[in-house]
């Protein structure tokens, strides 16, 4: 992995419109991001969810590098966090779609994600706009990801436990903590008003 100075420089070059910086960055981080995301989501290994999430995060950043704030975290960490958010959103969408297709909610997505055509998972410009807004509302990138899920209607406690790293807590405490944090996020979203409410990622 390149050092921090390289990532700072590549970010500056992307901001400046350097025509080859996107390719250099992709070549440097693509495999590492795939590996990192697959390690965090071992049940999704071998599916296209991982590539799709990394691809979405990378392309989004390359096209709009200003969404990254170097003061908050390193660029690789930002990309990984962003890919995690995209992955969870894609899983939530796929889960909802499957629920609609088979007519009940208790579908275990991880048992057969290969069956879901990845090209049906669309990330719209609107979603990007919402994500940028969330970045301004929440300092912690984990809260941004969680807020995106809240807006997306995700209700599973497990999803939020994964985002906030609460796995070590007892189940009841996980529920309480997730609820507390979700309430805080909802308040921020409510304060922000109609501009973001009701948007789907």
């Amino acid at each position, binding site marked *: 992995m390149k050092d921090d100075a390289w990532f700072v420089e590549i970010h500056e070059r992307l901001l400046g419109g350097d025509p080859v910086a996107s*390719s250099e960055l992709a070549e440097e981080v693509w495999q590492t991001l795939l590996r990192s995301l697959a390690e965090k989501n071992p049940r999704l290994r071998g599916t296209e969810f991982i590539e799709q999430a990394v691809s979405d995060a990378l392309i989004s950043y390359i096209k709009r590098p200003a969404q990254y704030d170097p003061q908050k975290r390193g660029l690789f960490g930002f990309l990984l966090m962003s890919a995690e958010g995209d992955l969870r959103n894609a899983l939530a969408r796929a889960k909802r779609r499957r629920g609609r297709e088979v007519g009940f909610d208790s579908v275990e997505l991880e048992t057969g994600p290969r069956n879901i055509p990845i090209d049906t998972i669309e990330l719209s410009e609107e979603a990007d706009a919402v994500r940028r807004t969330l970045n301004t509302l929440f300092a912690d990138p984990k809260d941004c990801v969680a807020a995106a899920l809240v807006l997306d209607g995700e209700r599973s406690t497990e999803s939020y436990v994964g985002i906030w790293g609460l796995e070590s807590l007892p189940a009841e405490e996980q529920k309480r903590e997730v609820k507390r944090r979700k309430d805080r996020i909802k308040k921020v979203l409510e304060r922000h008003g109609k501009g973001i409410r009701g948007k789907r990622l």
Partner: protein
Amino acid sequence: MGKEYVEKGSNAGLDWLVRHTKNDPFFVSHALAQYKAICDVDDEHLMGVLGCNRRALIRLALCRLPDDRDPTFRQVVQEIATFVSCNADGLIGVFREAAAFASLREGTGSTSGLLIAARDRNAGETGHRPNRHKTKRPKR
């Protein structure tokens, strides 16, 4: 067995990313895909036009597509060609063809790309031309 992501530092696997950027005009992969469609050629042919190997083609595809109307267009293309180690004149020809096609398809009346492409063609700038009898021409 799941995929193993171990080939860090190479561009192995990036062809997946290239496929997912070919409809995005931000990336060179868009122009390459258009060129291949217009001229009805494959990657092998494109590598011949550009004088590069597959790895260079993938690096090229993930660069930012320069605007052919920009005064610095040639300079930027030269920069890209140097980065990926390919033929700059061939690359200009590919970009011009793709831009001309885009102009026609958009129906904007802007023919600058088309005229420049024609001029480049007359000047023999691209050097390596696709098989013309296979080239699909838009109906006039």
